[in-house]
């Protein structure tokens, strides 16, 4: 099946720093989403980005589907950005779609 790899697995930042999170996937996908799981366990939608570039405030994302990767950029990080960032891809297969999550990047932003 399709493999989804996220890097780095762990990241510690000083408040105000910028960072780039990466998601590589091993086969073509129909959809790709980035999520932030906060310390309370809630999964928050960041981007729905099967291809192209999107920006939302201090966050932006780029997916290059032909090269099978996506990047999430966090600028001017804040302590509230701490948590786990997941990339999830969706691939059509016989009978329906299957969603596969990467292992996540655990981010801690220090004040």
């Amino acid at each position, binding site marked *: 099946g399709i493999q989804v790899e996220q890097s780095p697995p762990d990241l510690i930042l000083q408040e105000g720093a910028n960072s780039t999170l990466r998601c590589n996937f091993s086969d073509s996908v129909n*959809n790709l989403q980035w999520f932030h799981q906060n310390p309370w366990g809630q*999964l928050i939608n960041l981007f*729905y980005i099967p291809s192209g570039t999107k920006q939302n405030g201090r966050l932006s994302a780029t997916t290059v589907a032909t090269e099978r990767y996506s990047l999430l950029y966090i600028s001017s990080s804040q302590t509230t950005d701490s948590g786990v960032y997941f990339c999830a891809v969706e691939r059509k297969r016989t009978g*329906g779609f299957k*969603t596969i999550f990467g292992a*996540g990047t655990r981010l801690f932003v220090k004040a």
Partner: protein
Amino acid sequence: AAGVIQSPRHLIKEKRETATLKCYPIPRHDTVYWYQQGPGQDPQFLISFYEKMQSDKGSIPDRFSAQQFSDYHSELNMSSLELGDSALYFCASSSGLAGGGSSYEQYFGPGTRLTVT
């Protein structure tokens, strides 16, 4: 804006008992997904439904079953609970053709934290 509703939010059961988790999708969403997230793990896809029909199946144990009802809400039934079933169970919904064409952005509920003792 209305979000995905899950109930209960917390559930404590003993081994070999049964549990039922409920999910109410965002209005006008026709597709529901169930995921299981163990401690320190990424969410694992269990099963999905489109227009009340099962559309895909992941790593769902035979002890679990699910269905989507006429009002689009879904229930995950878990029997003969084991300690390893302790996890956060998420429901997500989307609007789209899960069985053909393309599916769309998934929105997650707050999850049900199941503890099996």
